[in-house]
């Protein structure tokens, strides 16, 4: 290493040292200590007592843990595709060169600025089965359908019915789709015009251009947003926690793994157990992210390669 290289190295390290310090203190240390605590019986107040893999053994037969994991996977499987598709759809719409497009972009982004807690309270009322706005909008549809086919269908009791609670939460979480839309928009604006022109010369219509030009070019952005929403949906906590007033939803349908960690750690003060569940969730998210990376390698197109 030459003198300049050495100097640059030191400077570079210095510049990122605030981050390194933050990472070590606030992420790495808690991660390692929670890994250790997961092997103990720890009530926050008393000294942790080492108990080996006891917590993990108990988790394996804990019905609530499995239910929370199932709920989390269910929610992720429902919300990731819906959120991604709607974000791409909105981004494509907002990318059209229309008068006032900046106003529309602002409007669609605005809901993302609403704090999670407000979002939870707001959607608690929006999704109310009897007087909620969502069902107010659905009633005419159901009434028409019932009149035509002689049925007696009613819109769902979103948050009171275990069958619909997760769908309700997905609806509510779409409210925050604005972040992803902005990232997609940036990606869309990066698509070289020359490619569109070439495609047009070859006689492509809008859909063909979207599928063969736009999507491959923005695939890194789709990948990024996909991973972010994967992680986000596996960590879902604040909105359902508020929507259920700190509870677990009807029939525990909104008991997610993150909620379970919180309840075990801060309600039951079984912090060792909570750490073990948290570590399992960490491994699951890590595995899924690696899997997604592996699967997407062939489909993500990087211009620099």
């Amino acid at each position, binding site marked *: 290493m030459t003198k300049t290289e050495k*100097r640059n190295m*030191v*400077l570079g390290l*210095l510049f990122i*040292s*605030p981050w390194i*310090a933050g990472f070590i203190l606030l992420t790495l240390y808690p991660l390692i200590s929670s890994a250790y605590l997961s092997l103990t*019986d720890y*009530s*926050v*107040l*008393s000294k942790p*007592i080492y108990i080996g893999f006891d917590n993990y053994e*108990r988790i394996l037969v804990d*019905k*609530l843990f499995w239910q929370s994991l199932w709920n989390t996977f269910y929610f992720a499987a429902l919300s990731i595709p819906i959120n991604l598709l709607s974000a791409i759809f909105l981004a494509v719409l907002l990318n059209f060169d229309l008068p006032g497009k900046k106003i529309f972009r602002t409007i669609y982004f605005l809901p993302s600025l609403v704090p999670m807690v407000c979002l939870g309270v707001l959607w608690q009322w929006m999704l*109310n*089965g*009897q*007087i909620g706005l969502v069902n107010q909008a659905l009633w005419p549809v159901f009434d028409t359908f019932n009149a035509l086919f002689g049925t007696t269908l009613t819109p769902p*009791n979103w*948050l*009171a*019915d*275990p069958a619909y609670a997760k769908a309700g939460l997905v609806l509510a979480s779409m409210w925050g789709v604005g972040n992803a839309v902005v990232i997609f928009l940036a990606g869309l604006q990066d698509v070289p015009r020359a490619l569109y022109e070439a495609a047009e010369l070859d006689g492509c219509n809008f859909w063909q251009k979207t599928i063969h030009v736009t999507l491959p070019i923005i695939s890194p952005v789709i990948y990024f947003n996909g991973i972010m929403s994967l992680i986000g949906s596996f960590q879902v906590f604040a909105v359902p926690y508020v929507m259920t007033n700190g*509870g*677990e939803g*009807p*029939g*525990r349908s909104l008991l997610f793994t993150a909620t379970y960690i919180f*309840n075990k750690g*801060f*309600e*039951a*003060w079984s912090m060792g157990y909570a750490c073990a569940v948290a570590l399992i969730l960490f491994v699951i998210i890590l595995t899924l992210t690696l899997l997604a990376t592996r699967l997407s390698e062939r489909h993500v197109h990087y211009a620099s390669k």
Partner: protein
Amino acid sequence: MPPIKILPITLISLGLVLLYSLVHNPAPPPRSDGRIEIEYWEKWTGFERDAMADLVNQYNASQDRVFIKFLSVSNIDRKLMLATAGGNPPDVAGIWSSNLSVFASNGALTPLDKKLAQSSLEENDYLPSVWQQLTVYNRVWALPTTPGSNALHWNKRLFREAGLDPERPPKTIAELESYNDRLTQFNDAGRIELMGHLPMEPGWWSANWSIWFGGDIWDGHSRVTATSEANMAALDWIESYPERYGAEALMGFRQLSGVFASPENPFFRERVAMVLQGPWMYNFINNFAQPDFEYGVAPFPTLREEDYGASLVECDCLVIPQGAKHPEEAFTFIEWLQRPKQLEALSLAQLKFSPLQEVSEDFYARHPNPYIRVYRELAENPKARIRPQMVTFNEFSSDMENAIDEVVRDEKSAHDAAEEVQNRQQELFKYKHQNWLQIREARLAEWDQR
């Protein structure tokens, strides 16, 4: 000196200062008037907070040795536990008696026995149902502020409209249900418009229904009894709701129960005629119900006539967390607050009753709540019960709530739901109990030293 060396030195020293301030935990600086500052965290935020703040001000004005710094802290159980674990707890904390067993078994509190022995306070000064709550593992952990009991609250106008005698509340569960059938109304679309009674409204005592069915949810020692005869009778009673009124209709109706402390509350909106509630209702009815709202308070009906008069008595209380910097001064303040005059002033302002045996003659005349005697008599009644001092009570409660929910939605039979709670909770309790037995001796010795 080249700039490259100044930068790292500054950064490193800044980092060290930051680290030091994180780790170091200084005592508050002395006050300019030389008084010792005592920190007091109180769980209440509303008018109950103001009532306590008044007394703290009185105390601060009454002497010049100590100054109480009064803070209103929400979610106090969680924050107090973390502050105590972090070694920086307040000197006094106002929590609920139901927190005591978990806090005590975790070593978060200072036992008060020695301090009590040196003070003029005695067990016999207090209502037994209150004192019982302050004692866990044969030690006293707290002193009371204001207790409450729960009772049947009924809407007299709705009784009249249903052709029932508005001055005659039901006394047995059978009677309650016959009233319920008379009061409950459906609209043409098959939706419930009005219910006589709904066990889930407000559903705060899901784990305690067995009180009115003549039983308990644990043996007080080592065994959970979710499938006891009494708890099964309670769950069978709840199971009769979906059978009689329909699971769908109940689900729709329950969605309308808005926030408790709001005009959306179904009792204030006259959509539920009878609820199990406590003395705080007086305040909420004044704030949120129509001015002509007419209601009565009586003991909640019981399955068997001989249990009539049973209720759950709970209590707000003051504790000295383990690691408090000024435990002696903290106790002096708590002791001052235990004087009849102070406790009665607090009870009047917090709209509850006094935890003391002796009550001054004009207390009831001065109390704004016309039904305050009913609640007090429930707490005096030998049938009064306290919340089970079981360390896994929160988890038990959550499981019972879920079981009731499943039964009302007609997803499970009362029997299966109870079995499930029993198996899960017994397992959990056994585990915690065994862990407790392992550290028990060390804990007891530790407590005896303090």
